[in-house]
């Protein structure tokens, strides 16, 4: 077996057998090595997962999921019918064929129309607050699934082609692991052979432990935790999940030879391996200018990758356990500006969700005839995150205690969007 991504001649089994045996250094065992329980059995995921397709910059959902043909606020493209209830843009013909798996929520109304704030709000279910940093979807799921992930050696929260949002008060051990869409994990090649690496880790363990004992705040212990997770990853054969290039060519072509396509394919591989949360980033949606020509360039890529992902997950029987969610920071104005673009708009927009027990094929909520207003019950980021947590089997009664001792309800205390579950 070619250990492409594991250190030079170092396999997990080998490394562990060395640790078990006599090391040159008779240092008391440190927690760094304690975690490295050999787990030879191939991991089969038996828990739910979530894939977030993050459209960074905020795409115009009025031109994608909730079109207004004929209205002065509508764009030039035409809606087409889908295998689900609603119509979507003609630029997403393949996604249209998968819409029986996915539901459109057309009544998002979220208040935050600034990129940074919207990004934070949609990822955490909380509006930014200078005194507390809230954990994002991936961190919450990594934390809540911790006991189910004993056999997972790679990070439980992976973000492909972007950085997602952070772990907040849950700490760096729940931070996103960022990789590029080629699946190259930088610096994963150890510079020395395993016996020496082991000695180095023993020396390092001693230093880490000493500094933690000096009681200088949580950063020291978090460093050690991340180090442990890094070691686990370095020696794991599960790193193969990142090797998107080892997929058959037909499969790679199906997803498309684009960053987003490779990212979606990698997301499927990671979910198969047992990673419970993967974010795939698609950027460049801040379409203040030349919106419609750029949609014609950008949407085909999304169409191919997103439809391939949903179809592939369904074909492998993974979709019933995998939530797929597609959104950006907010929507874009139901008004075309002087540069043929659309500006930021959070008052009425759409997200798409399916899989993991969410009932597909529906259109939930509605906007008025020109898309400027939600006419049904408006849904917030809190409501959306609560619904995803529900689908993931995470109790909405879960409460975190932020540093300040204040109890904090998961997902901002939102309420589940009932229609998603039939």
């Amino acid at each position: 077996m070619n250990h492409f991504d594991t250190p030079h001649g170092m396999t997990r089994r080998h490394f562990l057998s060395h640790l078990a045996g006599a090391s040159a250094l008779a240092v008391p065992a440190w927690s760094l090595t304690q975690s490295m329980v050999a787990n030879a059995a191939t991991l089969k995921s038996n828990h739910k997962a979530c894939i977030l397709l993050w459209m960074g910059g905020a795409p115009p959902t009025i031109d994608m999921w909730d079109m207004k043909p004929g209205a002065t606020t509508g764009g030039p493209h035409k809606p087409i019918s889908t295998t689900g209830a609603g119509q979507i843009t003609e630029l997403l013909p393949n996604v249209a064929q998968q819409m029986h798996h996915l539901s459109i929520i057309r009544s998002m109304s979220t208040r935050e129309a600034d990129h940074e704030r919207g990004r934070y709000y949609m990822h955490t279910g909380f509006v930014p607050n200078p005194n507390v940093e809230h954990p994002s979807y991936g961190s919450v799921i990594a934390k809540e699934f911790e006991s189910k992930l004993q056999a997972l050696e790679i990070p439980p929260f992976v973000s492909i082609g972007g950085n997602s949002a952070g772990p907040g008060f849950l700490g760096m051990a729940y931070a996103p692991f960022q990789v590029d869409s080629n699946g190259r994990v930088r610096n994963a090649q150890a510079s020395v052979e395993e016996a020496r690496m082991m000695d180095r880790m023993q020396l390092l363990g001693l230093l880490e432990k000493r500094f933690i004992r000096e009681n200088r705040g949580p950063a020291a212990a978090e460093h050690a935790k991340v180090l442990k997770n890094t070691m686990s990853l370095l020696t794991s054969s599960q790193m193969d999940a990142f090797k998107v290039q080892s997929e058959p060519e037909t499969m790679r072509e199906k997803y498309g030879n684009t960053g987003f396509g490779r990212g979606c394919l990698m997301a499927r591989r990671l979910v198969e391996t047992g990673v419970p949360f993967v974010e795939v980033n698609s950027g460049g949606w801040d379409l203040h200018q030349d919106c419609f020509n750029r949609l014609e360039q950008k949407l085909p890529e999304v169409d191919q990758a997103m439809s391939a992902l949903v179809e592939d997950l369904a074909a492998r029987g993974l979709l019933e356990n995998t939530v797929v969610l597609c959104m950006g920071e907010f929507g874009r104005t139901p008004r075309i500006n002087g540069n043929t673009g659309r500006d930021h708009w959070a008052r009425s927009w759409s997200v798409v969700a399916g899989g993991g027990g969410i009932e597909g094929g529906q259109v939930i909520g509605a906007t008025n005839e020109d898309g400027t207003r939600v006419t049904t019950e408006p849904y917030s980021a809190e409501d959306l995150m609560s619904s995803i947590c529900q689908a993931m089997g995470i109790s909405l009664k879960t409460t975190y205690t932020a540093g300040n001792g204040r109890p904090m309800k998961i997902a901002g205390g939102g309420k589940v969007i009932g229609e998603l579950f039939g």
Partner: protein
Amino acid sequence: MIRMAHSRGLTWLLAMFCWLAHERGLKATEPTSGSDSSHEAVVSLIDEKIRTAWNDNDLRPSPPATDAEWCRRVYLDLIGRVPTVAELDEFLGGKPRYRKQELVTRLLGSEYQDAFVEHWTAIWTNTLIGRTGGQQRRSLTSRTGMGDYLRQALSAAKPYDVLTTELLTATGAAQPDNNSSEDKYNGAVNFLIEKMEEGGIQATAKTAEIFLGMAVQCTQCHNHPFNEYRQNQFWEMNAFFRQTRTEREQDPNNDNRRLGYLVNRDYAGEGRMLYRDARSEIFLEERNGQLVDRDAQQVSEAPIYYELRNGQVEVAYPVFIDGTALEDVLADRNSEFGNSGYLEHVDRRQELARLIVESREFDRAMVNRMWSHFLGYGFTKPIHDMGPHNPPSHPELLDELGMAFRDSGFDLKSLMRWIVLSEPYSLSSRVTKKNRQDDPTLGVAPQFSRFYVRQMQAEQLYESLLTATQADETLGADRRDAMRQRWLQQFSTAFGTDDGGEASTFNGSIPQTLMMMNGDLVRRACSTDSGSFLDQVANNWDLSNREKIQYLYRAALSRMPSKEEINVCNTLLASRKGDVVGTLQDIWWAVLNSNEFILIH
């Protein structure tokens, strides 16, 4: 119209206020002597205010940090790297009573000028154009140009008000190697050159954020939901940038590059026909005994318009955030200049820069920023969102320190000196029973009763590794800079959004750890090639093996190894059958990868 709303009395008051501010501004530009005693007075002020707050909050400070810990801290924060063993020895050999003051004087003096300038150039570059500014292929921003300007300004020890004015009013070509234009190269334009789109929304937001500590980004669309900023203030501030535009052209010598220029142009205002040359009659009327062109104001007026949430359109002219209308400021000269878009009447950016540096927000924002650089937290969280809605933790200290900074003639080095010689900066980072609750990560206001541990910035790590190991000593300055830029780029991602959002993976997560464990930089730092740092330590016959181990610990951590650490290292050395250089390499790798190394403590 909004600008007409002022009553006569109010206008007079505003004019009075401006006059007073102007007087004070003039006074402030005469630097005080900066004598030891005036420095000491400000340091005492800090200590006193901070101590009062400890008492009020029933906190007891941690004991002082060891002098070696303090030394490591102050090298990292002032010149961006850890001290070498020789520097540490020299400091610890000084007279205990004076050595801290002496070290600070040296680090701020000519001896360390280059390191100081490089460090603060990097910090200011990241503040002004972000970590990703100028990194995209066809970007108009020249990171080199930005650095050029800052390097030159910091080398000349330009006062902060001068530096700010130069950044805010700059015109010229952005790229240093642009030989194809008559426009003069001016690196300072790189702050604004890519912030002028859509009428300069980003120029407005970033100027307010960086120089006034005001977060106004959201108010372009609506009144702020939970602070006092109003939508009209955003657009009235934005109006100051409307004579400015970015012009671009294809580089004739390079297909992949566009050249950028920041220029001032007469501005006609938005969305209306010009009267100007179309007038067939000019009406004169008598005002204050003089005949004046009745419609002159309408001819030169350059209004802008913005839309309220309810769709209503409002007009805006240049008005500073405190309500000072440019029209009133310039009324003495000519009643039509303030709202005019003609450069012969007014240079709006010049006026803005003057209003900014005269405002108290300007000095307080800088004090807050600088304090947070050295102490890990500012007086407000975040530092760029100050105002009545977000009261500072130490209002009097912030205010008085701001005034002292203003009175020093905006001398950045004085401000730095005061902070690093203060008591809160001297404390240990160890948590004690009596200050456990002073933990800003818990959402409480920081009281600085201990030194909050924080991670080095990527730049500090890079410089520290290179300094400790002299890994790039043989390279020229240009090569060195290019290598550093390339290395730093790996951590940053730009979101590609209109607000220039970006993120870094140099944040203590796995990619950073992988870089430390296996990356090229640490590999180079751990080189045992002939002449390398480790080779020199290993083959230094004056040092025993034990001293060699101690040397490594001191080079990276500024402390001696513990007995246990020495023992373990010796065991390793024995098992390697005397392979000293190989063993030292492993020790060095471990030390560099430790929490203790990467954390400023």
